[in-house]
């Protein structure tokens, strides 16, 4: 299932949080060889984890992490504006209608549906909170996966070679893309909404619909 958790609330999900930061170490340090900082417990964190980001996390049935991404508003401190302005034509991307999505991560045993479920959850955030675009920093080899899921970013720029290739891209999420991703995730829209409501609360009208 999908959970939406602000950093300040991660302590309520210790196993999920620990396994997320370990999977991030596994993906970004071990598999991709990026120069990220991994602590003595084998967990990867950076400065942006201290900005109270909103994590979107796939929780496996055993309570551990299956995949995740990290969202921050671009009106605050962001990775793309601090480190990758040379890949965005020199434009500092700042708007309350644009959020940053970074550390898109999948656990080694992630099933193909997990990436799609995360994209779907990202789409739900956009729809519900009036976010019109995501700007993302990601492992350039993910592009193939994004395309297969049905939600390809517009690449603004990329650098590095092979597994160290990093890209900056933009997403928007049309109703059409949403439908395509829902199909590849095999997740009913109703379920996506329920996960969202579990995290952010339901409105009485929605509760009535569910009960009917």
């Amino acid at each position, binding site marked *: 299932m999908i959970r939406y958790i602000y950093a300040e609330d991660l302590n309520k999900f210790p196993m999920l949080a620990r396994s997320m930061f370990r999977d991030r170490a596994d993906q970004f340090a071990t598999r991709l060889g990026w120069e990220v900082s991994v602590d003595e417990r084998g967990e990867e964190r950076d400065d942006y984890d201290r900005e109270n980001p909103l994590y979107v996390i796939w929780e496996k049935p055993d309570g551990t992490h299956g995949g995740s991404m990290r969202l921050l508003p671009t009106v605050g401190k962001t990775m793309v504006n601090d480190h990758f302005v040379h890949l965005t*034509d020199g434009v500092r991307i700042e708007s309350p209608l644009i959020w940053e999505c970074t550390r898109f991560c999948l656990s080694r045993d992630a099933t193909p549906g997990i990436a799609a479920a995360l994209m779907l959850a990202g789409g739900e955030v956009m729809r519900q*909170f009036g976010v019109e675009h995501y700007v993302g920093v990601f492992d350039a080899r993910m592009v193939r996966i994004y395309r297969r899921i049905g939600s390809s970013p517009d690449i603004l720029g990329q650098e590095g070679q092979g597994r160290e290739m990093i890209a900056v891209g933009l997403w928007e999420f049309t109703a059409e893309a949403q439908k395509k991703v829902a199909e590849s995730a095999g997740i009913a829209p109703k379920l996506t909404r329920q996960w969202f409501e579990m995290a952010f609360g*339901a409105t009485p009208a929605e509760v009535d619909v569910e009960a009917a």
Partner: protein
Amino acid sequence: MGYVEQGTGRDALFGRLETAETPEELQQLIELLRDHYSVDHIVYHWVNSNGDQYGCGTYPKAWVSRYLERGYLRIDPVVQGCYQRFHPVDWKRLDWSGKAARNFQRDAVEHGIGNQGYSIPIRGPNGQFAMFSLSSNCSDEDWDTFTEEHRRDLILVAHYFNQKALELEPGRKPEPSQALSPREVEALTLLGVGYSRAQAAETLSISEHTLRVYIESARFKLGAMNTTHAVARALSRGLIVI
């Protein structure tokens, strides 16, 4: 130089927000915004890490003093649900189930705050945190229609209001205004001389989606609500030449 925007229409109000120079003008503007959006109240309010507060808005004085006197800040589900976060919140989605929260809600409704509300949390520089809230007395359906229709505007106006409030805060050094990058200048210039988005994107060899994001960024830096507005402001500040 510049042009004075008059009146109480949407664009005029946002123009006045840009040129406001005193806290009294902000107070006046928040009242005009309330009338413009036909809601019962709008409140802007910030707290810093020391717990200091500043705000302006249209709540009755009796409610403001009661709120402080009763220490509602610690109970208010809106504050609990927004503090240090960044997603807009419909008050209906918050947890009002506790006894203290229910009593607080009853008290607020009795003071005419309304049974509906929508809050936009804002992250400012150096741990500054602000909230821009609208409230009204109406049905769930009407409120959903209202927030859906105006959400984009409200998110922008909340952030521009915060930028202005920070700018007017006594003793605060003005944040260096973010210069537009050459790419943003080019994009605004092309739109300013009448290129369509597709033509501008093609001229700059970028996708239309990328162009929209660059324009969105430029709009925010200029405090503008739409592209026409952004072009006008960039022109009047001498950032672009057409």
